[in-house]
């Protein structure tokens, strides 16, 4: 594959993740974008194009929410694009930003992800339910937890994974989240497996502590072409690979135990990055973890573990932040330990890998040397995988 320009990441920004933010969506977007520009040492005048990701308009109650947000995202009087693939959006936005620059058309692109889920009162459950098929599914009295609990049970049953093992993901991520300066109040913590398994049964096998919370927050990344990046930094972090894939909406016709679309997205990214053996060449990973089992499901889809093996590696500490022989997974704390403002949470995954590769992740920094890392998000009706690989 040849693209006219290599693409570098120059800076990242995040707001705190909050159950209810006082800031408006525009203000949240601005804070994250400003922080990313500051880290890059750039101003909005250096930005040629802007990509925005945020949930469908019904979440915010603002029609043309992308246009509403444009000013806060730095998009006014600039080529501006909004995109959305559910939970996969945060990483998808980076992919969109990547091809703005890889095409050779722009020198720089600011990618902003914003989500304010608290405006939907009392919570956005009703909007979530509208993802189900309106003819064959919604009349049954659906809720969003159903698809996750159905997928989780299928995964657990096919691979015979005990609930206690899956709870270890929540234990790890909620503990990692204690070190994240953006973590939402009350969600990180040092929990025992018993506390997680015995927390309120929401939709068996999903218990309350195995679910990420709804949040408000924003994130941003500044991307630049190789030509531009080399003028402003002597240590650019590169986007080495991108991949994305969408499977059928007929989700009841698929075997949910394995996310094949995540595998396809990962293979696309590995091929582009020239990665032959991801288990050796990926040094840190931020897989999407809106539910505890999802992290394991995704680690397998990313080919970082054989099918059904991610839980066994988890028991051995292979995915721990301080592992020396394994691959640290969600050292940030992820969605379970930091919060889940949907599009912003996906972008956080990329921001964290950027800081990990740069070596500035602070208390979240992996113990082993990190030259390359992978961020992945997932979403829509159990159907989309988005992958970005960053490296030195």
């Amino acid at each position, binding site marked *: 594959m040849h693209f006219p320009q290599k693409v570098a990441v120059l800076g990242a920004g995040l707001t705190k*993740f909050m159950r209810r933010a*006082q800031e408006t969506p525009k203000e949240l977007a601005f804070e994250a974008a400003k*922080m990313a520009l500051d880290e890059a040492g750039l101003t909005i005048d250096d930005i040629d194009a802007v990509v925005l990701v945020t949930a469908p308009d019904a979440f915010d109650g603002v029609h043309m929410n992308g246009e509403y947000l444009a000013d806060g995202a730095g998009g006014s009087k600039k080529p501006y694009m909004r995109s959305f693939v559910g939970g996969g959006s945060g990483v998808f936005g980076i992919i969109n930003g990547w091809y703005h620059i890889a095409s050779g058309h722009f020198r720089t692109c600011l990618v902003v992800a914003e989500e304010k889920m608290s405006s939907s009162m009392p919570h956005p*459950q009703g909007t979530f339910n509208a993802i189900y098929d309106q003819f064959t599914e919604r009349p049954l009295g659906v809720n969003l937890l159903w698809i996750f609990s159905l997928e989780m049970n299928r995964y657990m049953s096919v691979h015979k994974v005990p609930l206690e093992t899956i709870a270890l993901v929540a234990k790890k991520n909620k503990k990692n989240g204690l070190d994240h300066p953006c973590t939402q109040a009350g969600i990180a913590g040092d929990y025992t497996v018993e506390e997680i398994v015995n927390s309120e049964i929401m939709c068996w096998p999903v218990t309350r502590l195995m679910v990420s919370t709804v949040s408000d927050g924003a994130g941003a990344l500044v991307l630049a072409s190789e030509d531009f990046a080399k003028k402003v930094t002597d240590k650019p972090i590169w986007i080495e690979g991108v991949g994305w894939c969408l499977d059928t909406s007929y989700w*009841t016709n698929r075997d*949910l135990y394995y996310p094949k679309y995540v595998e396809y997205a990962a293979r696309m990214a590995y091929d582009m990055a020239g990665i032959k053996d991801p288990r050796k060449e990926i040094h840190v990973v931020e897989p999407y973890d809106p539910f505890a089992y999802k992290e394991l499901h995704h680690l397998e889809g990313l080919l970082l573990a054989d099918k059904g093996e991610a839980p066994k590696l988890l028991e051995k500490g292979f995915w721990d932040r301080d592992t020396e022989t394994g691959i640290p997974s969600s050292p940030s704390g992820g969605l379970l330990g930091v919060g889940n403002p949907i599009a912003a949470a996906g972008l956080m995954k990329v921001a964290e890998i950027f800081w990990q590769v740069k070596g500035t992740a602070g208390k979240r920094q992996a113990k082993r040397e990190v030259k390359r890392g992978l961020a992945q998000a997932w979403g829509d009706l159990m159907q989309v995988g988005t992958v970005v690989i960053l490296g030195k």
Partner: protein
Amino acid sequence: MEFKGKSLKDRDFKEKNILYTDWHVKAHYAWDCGVALSKFFEGLKEGKLYGRSCPECGRVVIPPRMFCELCFKPTDKWVLLKDEGRINTFSVSYVNTDASRREKPNVPAVIEIEGASEGMGILHLVAHPEKIEWENLEEVLSMIKIGTKVKAVWKPSNEREGAITDIKYFVPVKEE
């Protein structure tokens, strides 16, 4: 690095500690069921489950569609399926559609329908075979598992309206 954000509490709205503005919307939609699903729902009215077959890959799919999304060719035949199948996966839900909690759970499941191709499931509910309502998680887990055979329980024919809810639920059945 300094991370921005001012956190509010639910009570800040209730007690009006902050300034806010609110807006209510009542949205109403009506969707015609389209070509494939209209025939499918007509079938449900008669107590029949129809799938649709693809001449290219040979799959019999349910829910039916007028085109095969894999071959990207028109499907060409209606196939009468059985009103029974096997549980592909299930869960035990203590949460209602509006996120309020249920005292007794219900059981959503993906049910692979007999007569359709392998892996062709639909979403529906599984009820207790005698008392309909499930008592608790333990009772559900003692009676059903992945692979359990289930059969549709239909509304009386005069109450059917051509909707997925014409099947009230599925119940586990004993294997011969």
